[in-house]
């Protein structure tokens, strides 16, 4: 092969390497590795879909290797599992910051991590109290099986491929407190009140100054007029002389 062709092949290989090194695992590549079964229940009502309240309700998440994969050796490299809370499509519309992307490094669907556990083929359960920073939205739970480095090898999720079944709606806190409301009201009233107070004080002072000045100016003005007319008379008399 000519030197040019070798160089071209090397360049392409280098570029391929770089592009592979930068990107994360492609979610589509995991499609064949949906080897885990996951179930999430809202503890209070013991149902797999419905409303859960932040701060008070718990999610009981149980995962295990799908029985159809038992003994196939597919789970040989699984070291840990990462359990994540993911947005359902209905909560992703018009919100680019929750967009689903194939590159798992850039994917923002499952931005809330729940916990991480060691992988065992018989599976495990975890109970998670929904933390107060979880926004109000519709969710499902996904579990990634990862290797020692953290690269995703397989996954499982509580919902189907179209992400429309078994969805959990989480009701958030508003963040408001009565004390904040009261403080805001007090400060606002203080602001407007002190402004009104200042303005009325100055208006009163002004009126006092004006009434004194009014008399003064009126007297001065009449003096000036009289003075002018006297001067004019003197001029007329002078011109006549």
């Amino acid at each position: 092969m000519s030197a040019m062709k070798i160089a071209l092949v090397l360049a392409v290989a280098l570029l391929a390497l770089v592009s592979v090194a930068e990107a994360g695992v492609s979610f589509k590549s995991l499609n064949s590795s949906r080897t885990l079964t996951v179930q999430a229940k809202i503890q209070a009502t013991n149902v797999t879909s419905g409303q859960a309240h932040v701060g008070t309700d718990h999610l009981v998440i149980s995962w295990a290797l799908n029985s159809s994969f038992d003994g196939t050796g597919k789970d040989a490299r699984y070291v840990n599992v990462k359990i994540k809370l993911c947005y359902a499509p209905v909560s992703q519309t018009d919100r680019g910051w929750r967009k689903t992307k194939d590159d798992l490094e850039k994917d923002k669907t499952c931005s809330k991590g729940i916990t991480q556990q060691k992988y065992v083929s018989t599976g495990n359960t975890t109970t998670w109290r929904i933390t107060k920073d979880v926004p109000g939205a519709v969710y499902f739970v996904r579990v990634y099986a990862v290797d020692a480095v953290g690269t995703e090898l397989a996954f499982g999720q509580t919902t189907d491929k179209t992400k429309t079944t078994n969805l959990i709606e989480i009701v958030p806190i508003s963040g408001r407190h009565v004390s904040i409301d009261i403080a805001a009201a007090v400060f606002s009233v203080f602001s407007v009140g002190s402004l009104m107070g200042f303005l009325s004080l100055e208006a009163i002072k002004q009126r006092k100054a004006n009434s004194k000045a009014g008399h003064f100016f009126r007297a001065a003005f009449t003096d000036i007029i009289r003075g002018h007319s006297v001067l004019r008379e003197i001029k007329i008399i002078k011109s006549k002389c």
Partner: protein
Amino acid sequence: MAPQGENRTDADLTGEPGSSLHGVTGHEVFPYINMDTVPEEATDLKGRKFSLPVDSEHKAKKLKIYSFARPHMLTFHLSWISFMTCFFSTFAAPPLLPIIRDNLGLTKTNIAHAGVASVSGSIISRLLMGTICDLFGPRYGCAILIMATAPAVFCMSIVSTVDGFILVRFFISFALATFVSCQFWMSSMFNGQIVGLANGLAAGWGNAGGGITQLVMPLVYDLIAKNIGADNFTAWRLAFFLPGCMHIVMGLIVLAIGQDLPDGNYSSLKRSGDKVTDTFFKVLQYGVTNYRTWIFTITYGYCLGVELTVDNIIAQYFYDRFDINLTIAGTIGSTVGLMNIISRPAGGMISDMAARRFGMRGRLWALWTLQTIGGVLCIGLGLLGSLGPSVVVLVIFSIFMEAACGATFGIIPFISRRSLGVISGAVGAGGNVGSILTQVLFFSNQSYSMEKGIMLMGVMAIACTAVLFLVYFPQWGGMLCPPSKATEEDYYGGEWNEAERAKNLHRNSLKFAENSRSERGPSRQEQTSDSAPTTRV
């Protein structure tokens, strides 16, 4: 005090429309009364000494930035700090949007609407503020506005719906009218030859509030969320008490120690108010029918408008596109506003330097160049995909855009003498309209990603700046056309009709015309010796 008859001083002119921003030029040699320098130990009407050299109107002739001496330098600091406070609170929400959007369940469309709302309130308030300053004085105008918008800032802490959020951002934006009171106050306190610099510094440092807020609000939020341990969704609400309290404090300080004029407050100086109602419509007419007003409204719309839009979207853009944390995104976003500290006064100075060499044509070319380069850099920002270069381009872009804003106000004082207040208010409001238009067109619908929106914004900025080629001053020329034989007196005198000229109501325009001859540029200055002013009073 003023002698009777022809010699009217500034104090008599206060209240007359168009007097709002009289004195706002970099070059105006004092048109109203003689320019005798008053000795250093000048005293005001009450006998107090001035610490700066003043002219015969008691306006300062020097700017000592480190001084807080009454009344001039204190006024300078009060007005830029109160303007900065208003910018701070208007743009306090964007750096915290990643938290707020989760708390309130906002969508991209909601956020865009809120961004539009946050610059629309000030359109109306800027238009009104000029008149309010004329009637009641800049001290009252500034203090009333800043204390009346404080409740809106506190309301941000208690919003829980999308509509509430949008409404609150709308009401807070009324505060941006302090721009007009700030500029008005500067021109009441500083002599015509340095008022350009004073205005540029005050406006630039005030605009920097938009940048300071992007740094400070995430820090305050972190402090409350991590150190005090409040929930995320409560912490951001508490953070808003900072701008609210700043409003109250500044309002009280302005009322307590502020002063309208070097000699005292409006209420203690005699004024005639009838003139306002008499000629208000005339002033409006001459402002509105001058086509240059609208050209500069469009160009300022894509100069300040772009800056306001970027203030609103940039922290979110970096947070979402490059996956960096909130505080760092806020820091990067803040550089845009902070660049104002130097770039806006620099733009004013560049305009002045161009005028010294080429007259008004130089000013126009300087403005076009700065703004077009800004537009090109904006396109570049939208096209770049990596963090480092994006930050560098962002910083350079903001320098050019803000310098263009400063350069715009080097030209505005020359468009009209009679309708100066109205034109300044209209151009200022135009900046906000440009921001609204941009946010609605490019950042509120789903079809454009944020980077595409930024790129298109740059394209539109370049296109709208091109209308500058249409500006033509008969006495000075335009960008492409040389001047005609018309004189400055023809141009400024032409704003008065026959009847008014017969009564010599246009005498101040004529004085201004004589002083604006410097805009001819050095090559035509020799012609000024022929036309000795006949109306010197």
